């Protein structure tokens, strides 16, 4: 691999050829604010927040789409750069609701984070603000177009990750919006609710509806796990607060799927708390299933199976193992049948 050496804020760094200036900064822990950049998506160079000053280049080029070059001299924090970024943030904030206190995204909002860092007041510009209807018509995604900063990541996620292109920009200039065709609500579009758009939104424009009001990012612990809903084996993070799963978020390091998920994986987790869950052992007594203690239930099974085995032989007992359970449990089940009961009568529903 070919390496390039460049100077960033007076520090010499080496990066592989083909890196952008942003890559170079991030590899060396030099902070650059970005809103429209996502490593898994193509770069748009649209938000302009990542601008830097580069010797010999006119204007302030955006680092996310500027290729690093040998000998380049980059400044990421000088007053001119910081002032430009601050102005851009003021512009965004001027057209953004300031209901941060009640916003689901609080604590995880990139705009809020940068606005804070750059001392944005929200009082420099006064004028028109978007006033568009909130899309609340589906059970999964809450879309507030007034909070949208038009970074376009959701559009690219829908197209590049999901291959659907349910979302796109419409109109232009200050009137630009993001939404499904005809700016209809999601549930009147062909949306599959994979939620990829939600997973990349840097602000509170797209949030998981079921998680609203359930917990703040800093109260939540995340547990990576494997999705139980099909054979693809997507990974995601279960969001846990006070011993309760409150939702699912993408884990960008998931080996199979990255940030992509489908509607089941992302929004089907509430089945854990279904009213249909069996939460205590049940034993049929007088034809009716009634609650029982574990000891009673397990002893009953042990004695019944022992009895049948003794009377009719081990091959009169069978088991259906589960394509939903873990490998370890399946192993235990077949070991139980083969070693404890003494039969090969073990199968599971879908062998194909």
């Amino acid at each position: 691999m070919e390496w390039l050496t460049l100077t960033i804020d007076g520090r010499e760094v080496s990066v592989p050829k083909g890196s952008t200036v942003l890559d170079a900064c991030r590899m060396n822990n030099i902070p650059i604010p970005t809103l429209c950049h996502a490593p898994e998506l193509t770069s748009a160079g649209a938000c302009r927040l990542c601008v830097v000053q580069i010797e010999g280049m006119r204007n302030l080029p955006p680092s996310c789409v500027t290729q690093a070059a040998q000998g380049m001299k980059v400044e990421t924090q000088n007053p001119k750069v910081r002032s430009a970024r601050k102005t851009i943030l003021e512009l965004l904030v001027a057209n953004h609701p300031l209901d941060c206190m009640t916003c689901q995204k609080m604590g995880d909002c990139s705009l809020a984070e940068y606005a804070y860092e750059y001392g944005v007041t929200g009082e420099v510009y006064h004028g028109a603000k978007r006033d568009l209807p909130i899309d609340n018509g589906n059970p999964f995604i809450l879309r507030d177009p007034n909070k949208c900063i038009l970074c376009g990541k959701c559009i690219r996620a829908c197209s590049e990750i999901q291959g659907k292109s349910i979302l796109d920009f419409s109109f232009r200039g200050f009137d630009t919006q993001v939404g499904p065709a005809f700016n209809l609500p999601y549930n009147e579009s062909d949306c599959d609710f994979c939620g990829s758009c939600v997973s990349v939104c840097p602000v509170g424009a797209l949030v998981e509806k079921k998680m609203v009001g359930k917990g703040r990012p800093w109260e939540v612990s995340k547990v990576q796990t494997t999705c139980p809903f099909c054979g693809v084996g997507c990974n995601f993070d279960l969001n846990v607060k006070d011993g309760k799963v409150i939702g699912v978020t993408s884990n960008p390091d998931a080996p199979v799927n990255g940030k992509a998920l489908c509607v089941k994986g992302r929004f089907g987790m509430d089945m854990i708390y279904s009213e249909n869950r069996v939460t205590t052992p049940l034993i049929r007594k007088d034809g009716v299933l009634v609650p029982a203690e574990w000891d009673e239930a397990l002893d009953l099974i042990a004695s019944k199976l022992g009895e049948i085995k003794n009377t009719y032989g081990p091959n009169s007992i069978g088991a259906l193992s589960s394509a939903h359970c873990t490998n370890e449990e399946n192993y235990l089940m077949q070991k139980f049948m083969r070693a404890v009961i003494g039969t090969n009568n073990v199968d599971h529903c879908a062998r194909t």
Partner: protein
Amino acid sequence: MGGACCCENLVDPKQIELDEIINKHKYDNGPLIPILQGAQEVYGYLPAHVIKHISKAIRIPVARIYGVVTFYAQFRLTPVGRNLINICLGTACHVRGGAKIVETIEKELKIKDGATTEDGRFTLEVIACIGACGLAPVISINNEVHGRLSPDKIAGILAKYE
């Protein structure tokens, strides 16, 4: 219901024309804008069912087409009135009082830029330049140019169009 119905085979002559346009451009590189232009010629505007039909025919997502349609000034999502007024607000027209012409017409017709009067008589569009800068300020109604205007001439000109 529009043209999305598949149950009855009512043959709509506009639909046939639209399909001809689609087939003409379908295999070109970048067929979308010429097809939309053709469709607008046929329908006078771009109804939702036409956009959906085009989407299916050339496999471009509806949202993307909607994005294109709303991006370009030429495309309309609503029918145009019987008479289309284009008010030029090119620089030459502006410095020669174009804004006053806009104001006068808006007051006269009680509609804003881009709207159509309730009776469907006029649609008003402010455009960047007709290219008749020598005659500034100018408007065109149904492509007929009226130049060297002043606010007091407006009422008389509009009266000529039913």
